[in-house]
């Protein structure tokens, strides 16, 4: 190797620059603050009677495959279900927890689940290709064209919402509630909110929904537990829930108020800010390489140095 000392640094710098342009796509992106003007739904679980009309309406609007049991069949509610490739939303039935020996209320709580459309969605932050997008109106939508099927969104989702078409060999998709994005954009309603005979879901701007939720809680003392699920969970969600039972007993995971992407994005962006960390590491290693005499041609000298340092003090 017959490079001069200066030449070494020149090439080293060029290499560093090449490396940084090669990776230059991972910069910080500005995230719009979650707006209270974005849309959402308030679900009053005390009103729901588990008729499954919302499941049916959703299934029809999105042309999903027909389920095995018809939508009139109410015994399916006896088993806890989750969204899958045939359904973007499910209604579950939760019996009151038996506290001690006495059960005061026999009425079960029905809860409709679907994508919560988080303000700061983990899936959107996680998606390797940006196939999931947080839209301005609050919806989190999926673009199958970009997707590679890594299922990291499913790992990331704190509500375990995205489902996958495991039986499709060629074009499997991630299936999740779209918040009826195209209909809502045209001024329509989500299919579930439109069809609900008990008006369990109220569709509207989030600030109005929060006001409504507080009004309901104030005017029905003792009816609701003092918590609006989704107001603060994982940084807030577009779908909000009211309930008469503690949320942990009706199928809601207990989550912290901090949005999980804040930590990972903080780590990623501080690591790649101006490519400082990789560039410094690159230069440092180059410096060490020089200092240890990698560029020196006379091998003998390095060998001497190595033996002087006592590198081979442990011969076998």
């Amino acid at each position, binding site marked *: *190797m017959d*490079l001069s000392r200066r030449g*070494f640094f020149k*090439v080293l710098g060029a*290499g560093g620059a090449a*490396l940084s342009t*090669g*990776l230059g*796509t*991972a910069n910080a992106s500005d995230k719009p603050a979650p707006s209270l003007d974005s849309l959402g739904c308030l679900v009053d679980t005390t009103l729901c009677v588990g008729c499954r009309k919302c499941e049916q309406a959703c299934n029809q609007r999105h042309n999903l495959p027909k389920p095995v049991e018809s939508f009139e069949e109410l015994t399916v509610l*006896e*088993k*806890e279900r*989750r*969204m899958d490739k045939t359904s973007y939303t499910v209604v579950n039935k939760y*019996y009151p927890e*038996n506290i*001690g*020996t*006495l*059960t005061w209320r*026999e009425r079960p709580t029905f809860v409709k689940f679907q994508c919560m459309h988080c303000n700061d969605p983990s899936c959107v*932050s996680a*998606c390797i*290709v940006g196939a999931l997008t947080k839209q301005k109106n609050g919806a989190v939508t999926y673009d199958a064209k*970009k*997707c*590679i*099927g*890594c*299922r990291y969104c499913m*790992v*990331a989702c*704190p509500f*375990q919402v995205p*489902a*996958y078409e*495991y*039986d*499709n*060999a060629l074009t499997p998709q991630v299936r999740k509630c779209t918040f009826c994005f195209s209909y809502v954009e045209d001024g329509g309603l989500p299919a579930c909110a439109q069809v609900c005979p008990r008006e369990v879901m109220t569709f509207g701007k989030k600030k109005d929904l929060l006001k409504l939720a507080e009004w309901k809680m104030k005017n029905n003392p003792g009816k609701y537990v003092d918590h609006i699920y989704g107001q603060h969970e994982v940084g807030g969600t577009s779908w909000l829930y009211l309930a008469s039972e503690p949320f942990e007993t009706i199928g809601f995971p207990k989550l912290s108020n901090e949005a*999980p992407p804040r*930590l*990972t994005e903080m*780590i*990623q962006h501080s*690591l*790649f800010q101006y490519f400082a960390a*990789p560039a410094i590491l*690159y230069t440092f*290693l*180059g410096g060490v*390489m020089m200092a*240890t005499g990698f*560029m020196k041609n006379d091998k003998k000298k*390095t*060998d001497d140095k*190595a033996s002087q340092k006592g590198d081979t003090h*442990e*011969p076998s």
Partner: protein
Amino acid sequence: MSHHEAAAPVQEKFLTPGVMVMLGLMAIGGLFVATRFIFGIGAVTNLNNQYPWGIWIGIDVASGVALAAGGFTTGAIAYVFNRDQYHAVIRPALLTAMLGYTFVVLGLLVDIGRYWNITSPIFNHNGNSVLFEVAICVMIYLHVLYFEFIPIVTERFMGKVNLPGFLSKFNGLLEIVLAVADKVAAKVMFLFIIAGIVLSCLHQSSLGSLMLIAPSKIHPLWYTPILPLLFLLSAFAAGYPMVVFESILVSRSFGREPEMDVLTPLARYMPVLMGLYMAVKIGDMIVRGSYVYLLDGTYQSNSFLVEMLVCVFIPFVLLLFQRVRRSPGLLFFASTVFVLGILLNRINVFVVAYTPPYKLTSYFPSMGEMFITAALIATLMFIYRVCVFIFPVLGADPKKMTQKKISPKKISIVGVIIIAVLLITTPQYSAHAAANSENIKTKLPLEQNITPSIADAPKMMMMNSKVINQYSDLYEPVRFMHSKHANVLKDCTICHHRMPREEGDQYGEPVSMLQLKEKNNCQYPVPVAMISPLILKICILRG
């Protein structure tokens, strides 16, 4: 590189019983791979909506990357810190890393649903995604590794290009290409070596950040904000044991003397790196207070204990002794255990620690998943063998082993220990899987659910205290017009919940309107008002 130890292609019999086993595994795995590509992931795996990632991610990808760390760690010590004596292990480590990363990509192709769209991240960027950074780093690093392999190819074929038949007119052209490649590679190789180290540091750590996006799903024993640092340190620590493991294995398989003159000095660094990893991990555990989970006996905490005590602490202690570092058998044993420990760590983080909020079914890898993983590893080893037969990777003029090829005693000892570790761990997982399948949440029918049994009764001590009695007796009896009350409510069961089975029975049977009508509206069960002083007492006792 100018001062390589002489290396030469291996001249041995190619087909051995071991190779036959590899070919067999490859054939079985090939069938499963074909099934996966024809009928989809669901046909060969146990993956589901609760567990989107299984052992294909935990072993093929995460462990594959971690165990290919030998490439950049030997590169660092031989070229950056310029310790000449380690050049002998550079080429095998480079080949392992190159093949390792190639098979990470092949494993991913099997795992991801839209494998034909794998180039999508090149065009669609998400700078916020940890996985995106990992993907780009791995992609570039794979090319860097292939570039670093160029001198080995040119050394083998320069001046010896001899294509058969009509292709022979390209001989001259190919010679020129090789000569140019050799020259360019020699000039800029150091850039690629450093780039390889930087890229490795980046994606080894970022693999650890992957699971940070799911704080509510990862068991607190593993979930820590410094998980990326732990992944990086464990990759550093895994590099040299992997080199030793592989070098001794290869020497044995070709009946050569292990290269202890290189491996023993290399082993000096191993306890330092392992100790650092262990210290940071234990320190983190103490700071976060997650040690409270250590002895709770779940399969997760047991898995953590095996990972740390058996697979990190034991090799760390062993390698502190010079005798261990000098003995090929013991060094091989310590290295192998640590390598298995890193494997277990990655499986733990990606599969064992993962607890979905709604666990409708559980996950245990299917035969298809296991055989495809085994086939990928077998193919890797097979191609490694092909490569060392073609290219000058292993040292020339090997010292043949004087004694018999393999000492069966040592092999059996290692085998027994590995099997013991597996025996300790596997029943844990399978027992957990079995327990889970029983635990699938089915709600009891309503009647059963609300009929209380005496076993559920709160265990409490009744205190006959004047103070308490003073308050509990305050509200009894409450007088009201019963008929009017019943007329308004039209449902006696709101107040009357239980019918006593016999005298003094406080729990009784649930009341229904039907039963009441049958009993001619006369036999009213214990009114709720009679139970209320009891409840008040419980409240006072507890509060």
